[in-house]
């Protein structure tokens, strides 16, 4: 579903954010991408979301090579991805429901079905009774759940999340991960970049570990933490 092959990202000022990173994620997997801050997690997230392009190497998502993607094809790629940003990027000038309706409006989904779908997405993240609330009135955890609802309302095949639990307490973080796990259970491929993966009872997630721009470990969380230290 996602294949990265010898991906290197060098910024104009000479800093190498990613060096020769390769990995493969198969459909339906749930993967944590971990590493210290500055290890290159967010860079990899931006490359996967086609916000930036790799300096060299190739990334293939859902059969599409991002390096060869034309600029006007990028929107159609992003519609297949559920993107959750570190700063959430909610729109504070409109209600919770309108935030979730935006991706449907973008693809031109019929209005009546849009409402039904948005409500279903909000139900999945436990925000059913907050439809008319403005995002500013939501707690941090609720805002993050709203961001997830917006990401999944278009029924993406892949969810990419960048530090979705960065500013949340342990309990809220656990809830967020549980939501991601629920999506994985119905066949969605989930990649979560986080410096702090939470152990969920009964969940066996694969862990990719980045350190200083290089892929160190591909296995379970314990070994990653050891090598990063």
């Amino acid at each position, binding site marked *: 579903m996602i294949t990265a092959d010898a991906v290197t990202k060098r910024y104009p000022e000479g800093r190498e954010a990613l060096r020769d990173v390769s990995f493969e994620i198969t459909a339906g997997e749930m993967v944590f991408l971990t590493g210290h801050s500055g290890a290159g997690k967010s860079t990899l997230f931006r490359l996967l979301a086609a916000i930036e392009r790799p300096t060299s190497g190739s990334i293939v998502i859902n059969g599409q090579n991002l390096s060869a993607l034309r600029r*006007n094809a990028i929107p*159609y790629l992003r519609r297949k991805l559920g993107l959750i940003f570190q700063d959430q990027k909610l729109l504070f*000038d409109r209600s919770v429901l309108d935030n979730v309706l935006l*991706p449907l409006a973008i693809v*031109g989904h019929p209005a009546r079905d849009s409402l039904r779908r948005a409500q279903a997405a909000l139900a999945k993240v436990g925000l059913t009774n907050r439809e008319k609330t403005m995002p500013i009135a939501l707690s941090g955890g609720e805002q993050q759940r709203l961001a997830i609802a917006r*990401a999944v309302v278009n029924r993406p095949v892949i969810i990419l999340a960048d530090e979705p639990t960065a500013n949340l307490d342990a309990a809220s973080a656990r809830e967020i991960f549980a939501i991601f796990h629920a999506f994985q259970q119905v066949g969605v491929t989930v990649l979560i970049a986080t410096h702090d993966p939470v152990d969920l009872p009964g969940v066996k997630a694969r862990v990719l570990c980045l350190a200083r721009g290089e892929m160190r470990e591909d296995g379970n969380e314990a070994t990653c933490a050891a090598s990063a230290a």
Partner: protein
Amino acid sequence: MRRWLGQHLAALGDALRRLLAAPLNTFLSLLVIGVALTLPSAGWLALENVRQLIGDNPGVQQVSIFLNLDAEKRDIGEIESRLRAAKAGNWRFVAREEALRHLQASEGMAEIIASLPRNPLPDAFVFTPSSTQPEVLEQLARTFATWPKVAHVQLDSAWVHRLAALIRLGRLVLLLLGVLFAGALVTITFNTIRLQIFAQAAEIEVARLIGATDAYIQRPLHYFGMLQGAFGGLCAALLVTLGFQLLTPAVAELARLYGSNFTMRGLTASDVALLAAIGGSLGWLGAKISVLTHLRRFA
């Protein structure tokens, strides 16, 4: 197709909502655009009225043939038969009594005429040539002058030429004015769309990130510019019509004093539609340019 239509309707609705969301800004923009369009359209209307006043065809000219005061019925018949033989156009005979009556009907002339010992006006023919070629007319005038009992031949072409030249000049001035104010309208729209883009920066950025195409982002902005221009055009139509209403009594009074039943022509429904269409197109153009210039930073 239905989805495409739905997206356009949604963009149109979005643009309308944004116009209504800032009523004061919208009002001021419409006023500025309206004033900018008022000058050229009022000028055009004035020119149209002048054209109508001097006749549908500014090329129609007349040759007045004044006879000697001592011309008799026989002489008049002679001239008439010569005119008939010339086959160069139509004519109308104006008897001196008729001319006097006509003059008496004019304001202030009755007393003057009453004080005259006898009718000072000659018999006359008003000749309307079928040709409008100046050379032909001058040739005709020269021929008429040689006929017996003809006192004076007046070719009313000089003032027509001058008037036609004036109208051409007026058109040119109007064209320049139109181009200037069209530029102003495009500039105004350019700026309001720039402000719209800055105001919507967050929304545009998010929409881009979650899969919005350029067309999706640009569409409401194009509609915004177009609606603003079209409403501005309607504003201009309103202003012109208002001015027209204020001028109508004065013009009617003036026309009455000149013994004319001329009535001014106002803006018709199709003129109003044309103004709105012109405003809309220019607004769309301004929005298009603004979008192309300012949306780059969201790439």
